[in-house]
């Protein structure tokens, strides 16, 4: 990369300006409670220059920290105004930075230790989620409260859409499936059942547009409290549960037209 100069300095990567500052403090054996600001600023700026020399984009956070360091230095050079409330008087401008560095060091250590813990699917394994868990049948009344999160729902929809094979050419087609019709279809599918896997309501819909219409119908149904979307475990299957109410009029979506 740096062919002209004949050598290239290998730069360690840092998670951010605090990480870099901590590294400099340790490397130059500075006392963290009494950081020589001039020296650390110099080292810090030297590092940023190295980054630029290697065509690494210097993130704005690094520049902000450089400005902060210089700001601290200039504050320390200024004479302290003689009469002030005595509390403000002797606050070292370095205090906040030291605080942040120490806090950051703590979480960095915590993260390191956490990383050494045996992790699921990396170091330890448990029985994987049963896709069609039998337990769902037996233990779940319709009043289950395994609320599905937005992310999971979007991911499930994405999964359904990914299975749609789009032709290599663009086809303009007319679909006559309305949200109301999709809602009726959904109710027909749910009729007499305790619950239905989320994917099933899209099973006979070959096109992207129709899937989207059905998805809106599902959301509509949830909004009207005619069904519930439930996920029992993280990463588990998503189910649609019909909500049985007494005076359930036959078409729920028509009123929305």
């Amino acid at each position, binding site marked *: 990369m740096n062919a002209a100069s004949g050598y290239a300095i290998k730069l360690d990567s840092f*998670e*951010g*300006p*605090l*990480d870099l500052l901590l590294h400099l403090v340790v490397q130059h054996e500075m006392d963290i*409670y*009494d950081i020589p600001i001039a020296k650390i600023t110099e080292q810090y700026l030297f590092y940023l220059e190295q980054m630029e020399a290697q065509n690494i984009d210097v*993130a704005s*956070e690094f520049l902000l*920290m450089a400005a902060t360091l210089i700001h601290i230095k200039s504050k320390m050079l200024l004479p302290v105004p003689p009469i002030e409330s005595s509390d403000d008087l*002797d*606050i*070292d401008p*370095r*205090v906040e930075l*030291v*605080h*942040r560095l*120490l*806090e*950051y*060091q*703590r*979480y*960095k*250590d*915590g*993260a*390191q*230790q*956490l*990383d050494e*813990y*045996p*992790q*699921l*699917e*990396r*170091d*330890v*394994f*448990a*029985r*994987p*989620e*049963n896709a069609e*868990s039998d337990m769902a049948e037996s233990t779940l009344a319709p009043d289950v409260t395994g609320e599905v*999160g937005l*992310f*999971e729902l979007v*991911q499930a929809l994405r999964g359904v859409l990914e299975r749609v094979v789009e032709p290599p050419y663009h086809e303009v087609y007319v679909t006559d499936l309305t949200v109301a019709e999709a809602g009726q279809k959904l109710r027909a599918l749910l009729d007499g059942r305790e619950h239905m896997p989320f994917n099933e309501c899209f099973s006979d819909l070959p096109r992207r547009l129709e899937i989207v219409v059905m998805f809106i119908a599902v959301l509509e149904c949830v909004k009207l409290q005619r069904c519930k979307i439930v996920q029992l*475990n*993280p*990463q588990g299957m998503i189910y649609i549960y019909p909500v049985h109410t007494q005076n359930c009029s036959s078409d729920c979506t028509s009123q929305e037209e």
Partner: protein
Amino acid sequence: MDSATLKSRLEAVLFASDEPLRMDRLLAIFEVEREQLRLVLQELTVDYAQESRGILLQEIAGGFQLRTRPEYAPWVLKLKSSRRTRLSKAATETLAIIAYRQPVTRAEIEYLRGVESGGLVRLLMEKQLIKVVGKKDAPGKPSLYGTTKYFLEYFGLKDLSGLPNLQEFTAPDDAALSLEMDFDN
């Protein structure tokens, strides 16, 4: 039910379960005294803890679960023909901050890390290790993040008290610092 029978039945149920089983759930299944179940769980844990076994019985996220021993991961991974996935350093750092400081806003995470962390927060949400636990009563009503039950399962923790202890630093407070200043002058 004598304890030997209960132990075998318990083992069968734990083996078949795909999630940590809570004490209450086990009590409902076996209809025995809590104390008896507790003792048998303990015995079974000790049985599995022997060196020669490939699995462990662990208390995780408030329940009990059978898990493979960490030292046999290479062979299990061959079975699953998957590569080891791991969280990046930055992601683990962000996750640690959320775990220790929860509930915490994105701005607070970014202040602590000194870098923009929106992408990492989103990644951790997608991995279901964290979730939005509320809104902070501050301008803009920023979301507050916290860890999920799956986070406990992921790191094999019984509860949040199982997190590694954070090192305490001595006297980072203003008083000590200003004292030093005086001496410098």
